[in-house]
């Protein structure tokens, strides 16, 4: 007879890492794994069977000592920087234009050429926005399930589809222009060239964002701007040609890094077989695709209204307004600092949910939901207050540095600074709705906001001056923020359910 008990029957406290057995059968299995067969149980311990021995020694566990693994301590600054990294490329281009008068697009160009470049740039965003959103959603889903092979395959196919869309869009645009005669030759080809080059760049950036290589995007943009400077100042090329070379360099760098990272991550993944695009996948992704299109239409609607206002005497039906653009660029500096809050707030939101779920029981659902509800309101207020303060500081600095010489510029800057915090609030709401897999609310809000943006911007710019199109942007942002906030507050009362449903 043995006196020493097997390991599994020793105490589960005092440094022994084993979890308490859940029931008798659990203990019996543990005994068998420790080598206590029926015969050993009989010969060494005096029990007929292992199960009987387990019954004799089983005690229901008093306490669940299991603790979730502690999460890594979060660093606010890193999260904040990660949040603003999405806007870094556009910020770099805007700063480069303001300071050096050259950038990846825009700069010191004749008005007609600038108009063509602007059209190409805007159309590249709109053409690829939806594709990037859908592709990212699908790829992130596959990465989350651990299927890197399928994720790499999906990214590749979506990128090819995006490139095809860019080309088809260019052909349709050319045909539209040929029919309506809006842009004369060679401005139409300038617009097409920028559209294609930037479209491919955005597609590559989209893949890098999925792979969390945001820094690479910023670095590639810097390389691109440097290339533009080299071509123009070093080789004396025309600014447009230099920019096309610079964009090509940036796109190539982004694409190369994206391919390399994807290959390395999917190298060990098993070859899998799955549909790239079928009706079900289209149905699941169409909300995100639509959001991508709506969002970029919204972002550029006010510019479109400003460019097409009062152009009867102009050489083109749309005229790029340098002062309008400068005013928006200055306001965007504040926006970049505000948008960092979106990412940190998303993480805070999920942290609140995680800790709340680990604290509240199923009898305390209302307390849990209320906690989230009030956290949301507090954070929303913080975002708006920060937005107002940063906007005020930006305006003050711009005035102090004499960056706003004209009344139109001042008006545009002020009004857009009022609009950007609202847009940030709306983007935060959007992020949370997507995380909870509730895109419908976002789509309705975005569509209404877009209509308000267009309508207000159109009427005000036609009745007043072109700079008043910016009121459409601010009104639209306000509507976007209000609608998404209202809808989210309705969801917040049952966030426990939505959190579960989103994990499905």
């Amino acid at each position: 007879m043995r006196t020493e008990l097997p390991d599994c029957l020793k105490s589960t406290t005092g440094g022994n890492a084993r979890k308490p057995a859940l029931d008798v059968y659990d203990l019996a299995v543990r005994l068998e794994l420790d080598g206590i067969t029926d015969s050993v149980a009989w010969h060494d311990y005096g029990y007929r069977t292992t199960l009987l021995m387990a019954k004799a020694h089983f005690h229901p566990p008093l306490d669940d000592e299991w603790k979730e693994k502690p999460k890594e301590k979060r660093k606010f600054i890193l999260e904040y920087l990660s949040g603003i990294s999405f806007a870094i490329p556009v910020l770099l281009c805007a700063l480069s234009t303001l300071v050096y008068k050259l950038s990846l697009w825009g700069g010191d160009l004749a008005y007609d050429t600038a108009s063509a470049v602007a059209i190409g740039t805007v159309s590249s965003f709109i053409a690829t926005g939806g594709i990037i959103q859908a592709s990212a959603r699908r790829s992130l889903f596959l990465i989350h399930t651990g299927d890197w092979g399928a994720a790499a395959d999906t990214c590749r196919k979506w990128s090819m589809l995006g490139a095809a869309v860019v080309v088809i869009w260019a052909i349709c645009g050319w045909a539209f222009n040929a029919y309506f005669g809006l842009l004369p030759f060679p401005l139409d080809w300038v617009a097409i060239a920028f559209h294609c080059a930037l479209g491919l760049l955005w597609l590559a950036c989209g893949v890098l964002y999925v792979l969390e290589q945001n820094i690479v995007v910023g670095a590639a943009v810097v390389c691109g701007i440097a290339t533009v400077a080299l071509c123009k100042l070093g080789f004396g090329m025309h600014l447009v040609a230099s920019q096309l070379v610079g964009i090509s360099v940036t796109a190539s760098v982004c694409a190369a890094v994206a391919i390399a990272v994807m290959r390395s991550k999917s190298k060990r993944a098993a070859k899998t077989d799955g549909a790239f695009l079928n009706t079900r996948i289209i149905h699941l992704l169409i909300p995100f695709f639509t959001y991508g299109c709506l969002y970029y239409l919204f972002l550029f609607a006010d510019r479109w209204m400003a460019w097409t206002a009062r152009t009867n005497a102009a050489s083109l039906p749309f005229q790029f307004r340098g002062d309008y653009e400068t005013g928006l660029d200055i306001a965007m500096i504040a926006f970049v600092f505000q948008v960092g809050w979106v990412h940190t707030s998303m993480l805070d939101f999920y942290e609140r949910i995680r800790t709340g779920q680990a604290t509240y029981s199923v009898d305390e659902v209302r307390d849990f939901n209320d906690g989230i509800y009030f956290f949301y309101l507090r954070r929303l207020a913080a975002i708006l207050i920060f937005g107002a303060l940063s906007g005020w500081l930006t305006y003050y600095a711009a005035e102090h540095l004499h960056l706003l010489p004209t009344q139109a510029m001042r008006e545009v800057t002020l009004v857009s600074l009022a609009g950007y915090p609202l847009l940030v609030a709306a983007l935060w709401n959007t992020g949370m709705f997507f995380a909870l897999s509730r895109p419908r609310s976002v789509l309705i809000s975005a569509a209404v906001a877009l209509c308000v943006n267009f309508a207000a911007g159109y009427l005000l710019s036609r009745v007043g001056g072109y700079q008043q199109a910016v009121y459409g942007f601010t009104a639209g942002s306000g509507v976007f923020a209000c609608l998404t906030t209202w809808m989210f507050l309705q969801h917040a009362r049952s966030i426990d359910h939505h959190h579960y449903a989103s994990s499905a």
Partner: protein
Amino acid sequence: MLQVWLDLIRVVLAMGLVFVALPLLAAKAGDKWQGGIGSLLVPSILRTVLAVEFTAIILGSWKLCLPGIVVSIYALWLGATVVLASRRRWIYDPKSWAVGYSKFLLWAAQGHWREYFVARVIAIPQASLILSLILASASVQYLWYPLTNYRFQGIQSYARVVSLQTLVTGNAWSADGSVAFLAPVVFLSGLDAATVIRFSSPIFFTMLVAAAAWCAYQYSGATWCSIFTAGLCWLYTRTYGIDSTGEPGGLEISALFLVLAVGCLRRSPGYAVIAAILAWLTEPKYPTLLLSVLGCIFIAMLIHWVYSRSPRMLRQFAATAFLLGIGVSLNSALRSQPADGPYEYEASARIASRIARDFPRNRWVLVSPAHEAAYSFSRGWHVELTEFLRQFPASKLSNPHFQFPYESDNIFVFVEKRPLPQTGRMILPGSSGSSFFYSTMSGRASMEFDAARAMAAYSSAHSNSSVYFEDQDLIIYRIAK
């Protein structure tokens, strides 16, 4: 020539889409209307024209008749048409959309869409075929002039062109119902007002003939009555009916709507009222053409009454004789009154249109008699010739250091080598020139002589002047920046 045909196709397509195809599709999308397209066509057209007319007039009065807003309102109108054409207000119920979407998915998955690509044989009755041929022939004959000429025959056409172009560019506009409803046609076709007015003329006359035929059908119920009406109307419009210019003005368009009103009176008094309103909006004055068209209808009905009571052999003979008679008469059709034009050389109109098309917008100036302004309005700049000569006499132009104060890349100066023969011509309304130079031979000759002298003086002192176009009647100088 290809360009001309392309322009015609664009105008026809634009008018067809805006007034016929899209409203019909929207009306058929609902489930209220169970009848065929024929019974839906005229009401749909009238509703749409009324909506577009009101929209354009209201927006035009606010200087907001611009592409974006007009297209948006038109889209809303189509949406409203779909809603009103539905018995159940499914548009309000999001679930109905989802059900419709799922039915569409089933329809697509089961391959029912292939049915639309199956070739079908359609039987067309002989009478309908003849009627269609008459209308087609009529439209071809009406089209002959616009296809071969850029210039207009009547001053009212120039006035309509300027009015339409003013409307669609958001400038201060005095309401003109005869052009308001053409605003979306200008936007959708991507053409200028002059081209749209030019090609809409034959379309209106064809529609007048078709409307008369339809009206006759409403009262007689017989296709042959329509054929007789169409033939008589066609003959009338090509001989006596048109007010001197061969181009429809407000009165002719008003007559068209009134004919439709008469046709609707029997079965749809509501649409008769709509047509009458449209006629009033287009031109409040009474159009004498209406009586003539109604007379053609009455005569056609009489002919048909006799025809229908004749023996079969005689009927066929009578029909053939009638059609032959129409054909012979049209071949030798004489105008009762000559047109009040021409107001410019054909070459002037053609070259002015070409410049407006080929050169960048608002980067050129046209210096010419007043009527070329119709082609350049809001696409470039126009300076009336006498005004130009007053500002820049030959003495000034002969100075080698003289430069034109215009911010443009090119200045085109139209000089008539052989002054346009004209007496009693009207000047383009709103033009800055004096009517003396346009209504008398001596005035015109004096203006052109001064112009020739001025250009000779400028050319001798400056090297940036060249001849852009020259024929036996006209010379156009180009002064490049």
